[in-house]
């Protein structure tokens, strides 16, 4: 170990002449907007008259959601046989859609929790909408396992509640862990979302003119009065919730992947599944955040709050997680070959070149190739193109879950029992309609709740620095 003999006089002369390069950081709120502008802009969205496009979208969303309603009513009144499930594929679109929607939710928690712990201030303008997306995606996801149980009026057997058969859930099953993981995830996401909103609801309450608004926001704001002593406890609670949500979000998709990895089926029984599913979930979630936020930015004129800097960062996360997903795909192939298990090798060759090759190559095209375009800054700067790529990400991630589920089940150990799975029109209707349900919930959120966290956005502008912002 070197003995430190340095003191200031020994400093090489060159160091005193060096001037560190000043790295320009792009502002998080552009055009030097002040506190009052931010309040007016975000509260203005909720306080303005309902725009006509909102009604058009709402009616369209309700029309779309009615497909889920019809699909489910037909299913419950007839039986699960109306879905395309048949031997050997008894896990079809229901699990695919469930994993798809749960995965989408993960970006919201990642933005609100993980980026909070990593002190990434750019999360502030997108976290509220992303958390809302998480909750609504969990609602959509929950529909599928709930109705897949067949007799939906017995779905409460999933929970450890006393019943007249005197039997209890089997805690050795990953499916039962999933019940705990997903219900905890939904609940904690709602708590985190609500707590983050309390100060903003207080602002909306104080600005409210109509009586119903005063009561509505007044009750929800819990009497928040911007006290610094309250902020002290609030910030501690926020940090703790972020700290709790981080292991939670990682565990949820890990446990979802256990649903597959816990089985002995070739193509499912791999230890790479947890990290691979989590990376895929974050990838798909950021795809959905871009899909939702870019149109909102244009419609509400949020360019100063949701800057090119934010879009760049989101694109880079999509690029990073998309590359991880691509790595996982190739690693699965490598391990299948290296593991020298003929069933495992067959499962993967069959994925890429078998009867579902069309789905596999859609998945690779959307998930591995399309995000690589984000290496180029001119593509990240082209907002319509970013939006199109984000749609590809969403499509690709749905196909990933379809490929995993269908290929392994359709061609398992005994060739005599192989089959080909196709969804029925009821499957398609039920899934299509969940986009309507998601849109209804998101439109209501836009109309009645603050789209961006006022306090957090104000916190990142230079005027919020208590030591002056000139140095």
């Amino acid at each position: 170990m070197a003995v430190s003999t340095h003191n200031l006089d020994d400093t090489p002369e060159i160091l005193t002449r060096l001037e560190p390069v000043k790295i320009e950081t792009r502002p998080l709120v552009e055009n030097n907007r002040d506190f009052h502008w931010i309040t007016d802009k975000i509260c203005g969205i909720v306080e303005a008259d309902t725009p006509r496009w909102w009604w058009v979208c709402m009616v369209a969303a309700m029309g779309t959601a009615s497909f889920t309603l019809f699909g489910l009513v037909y299913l419950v009144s007839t039986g699960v046989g109306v879905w395309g499930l048949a031997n050997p594929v008894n896990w079809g679109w229901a699990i695919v859609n469930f994993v798809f929607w749960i995965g989408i939710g993960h970006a919201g928690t990642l933005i609100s929790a993980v980026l909070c712990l990593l002190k990434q201030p750019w999360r502030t303008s997108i976290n509220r909408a992303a958390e809302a997306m998480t909750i609504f995606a969990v609602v959509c996801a929950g529909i599928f396992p709930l109705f897949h149980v067949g007799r939906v009026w017995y779905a409460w057997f999933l929970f450890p509640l006393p019943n007249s058969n005197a039997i209890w859930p089997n805690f050795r099953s990953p499916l039962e862990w999933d019940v705990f993981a997903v219900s905890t995830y939904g609940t904690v996401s709602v708590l985190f979302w609500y707590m983050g909103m309390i100060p903003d609801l207080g602002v909306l309450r104080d600005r409210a003119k109509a009586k119903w608004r005063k009561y509505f926001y007044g009750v929800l704001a819990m009497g928040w009065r911007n006290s610094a002593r309250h902020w002290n406890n609030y910030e501690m609670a926020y940090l703790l919730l972020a700290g709790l949500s981080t292991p939670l979000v990682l565990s949820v998709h890990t446990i979802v992947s256990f649903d597959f990895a816990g089985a002995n089926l070739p193509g499912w029984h791999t230890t790479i599944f947890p990290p691979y599913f989590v990376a895929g979930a974050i990838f798909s979630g950021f795809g959905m955040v871009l899909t939702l936020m870019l149109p909102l930015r244009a419609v509400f004129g949020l360019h100063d709050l949701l800057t090119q800097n934010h879009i760049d960062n989101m694109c880079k996360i999509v690029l990073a997680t998309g590359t991880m997903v691509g790595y996982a795909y190739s690693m699965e192939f490598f391990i299948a070959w290296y593991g020298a298990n003929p069933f495992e090798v067959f499962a993967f060759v069959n994925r890429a070149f078998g009867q579902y090759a069309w789905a596999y190559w859609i998945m690779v095209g959307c998930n591995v190739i399309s995000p690589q375009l984000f290496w180029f800054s001119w593509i990240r700067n082209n907002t319509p193109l970013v939006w199109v790529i984000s749609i590809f990400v969403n499509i690709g991630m749905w196909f990933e879950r379809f490929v995993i589920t269908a290929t392994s089940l359709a061609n398992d150990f005994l060739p005599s029992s192989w089959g080909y799975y196709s969804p029925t029109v009821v499957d398609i209707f039920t899934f299509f309609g969940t986009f309507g349900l998601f849109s209804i919930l998101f439109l209501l959120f836009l109309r009645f709740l603050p789209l961006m966290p006022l306090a957090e956005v104000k916190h990142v502008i230079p005027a919020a620095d208590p030591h002056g912002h000139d140095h």
Partner: protein
Amino acid sequence: MSEKKYGIIASFQTTPDVFHASEKVRDAGFLYWDAFTPFPVHGLEHAMGQKRSKVPCFTLIGGLSGFVTGLIIVWYMNAHDYPLIVGGKPYFSPIFPFPVFYELTILLAAFGTLGGMFLTNLLPRYNHPLFDYKDFHKSGDDTFMIVIESRDPKFDEDRTAEFMAELGGSDITVITAKE
């Protein structure tokens, strides 16, 4: 209905103003006073001489009770009340149902945190003398405020108002509480 003085409020326009004013109020030895800011000002808790928040205690209590609840329900349901043999695994072990303990730990810790935030802040409280101050809504928008309460032993209406003016506060107003 009688009226009682609640305290004196002063407004500040910038973040450094309220930060330095808070340091001076703290150094002047006031006990019952508070600052009101539209967002959590970085370092203000030290400038005000606040202690570390107690919320983590509630989180810990929530988390521990979640973990123990998980242990108890798995043991009771799968090993005691209705022992079930599945896959040759033991009736009870802390290993295989760990995801259940884990999720319940997080669930109850999150409830503990939110509940702890409300308890330590004495919220919800839908009525407060400050809500009657006509400009109070600005504290959520772009104005910073400091209130020194009348129950503070050093409170003296005239001298405290002068002190607030020295700090650079504007719109110095006496707040009354209805009783």
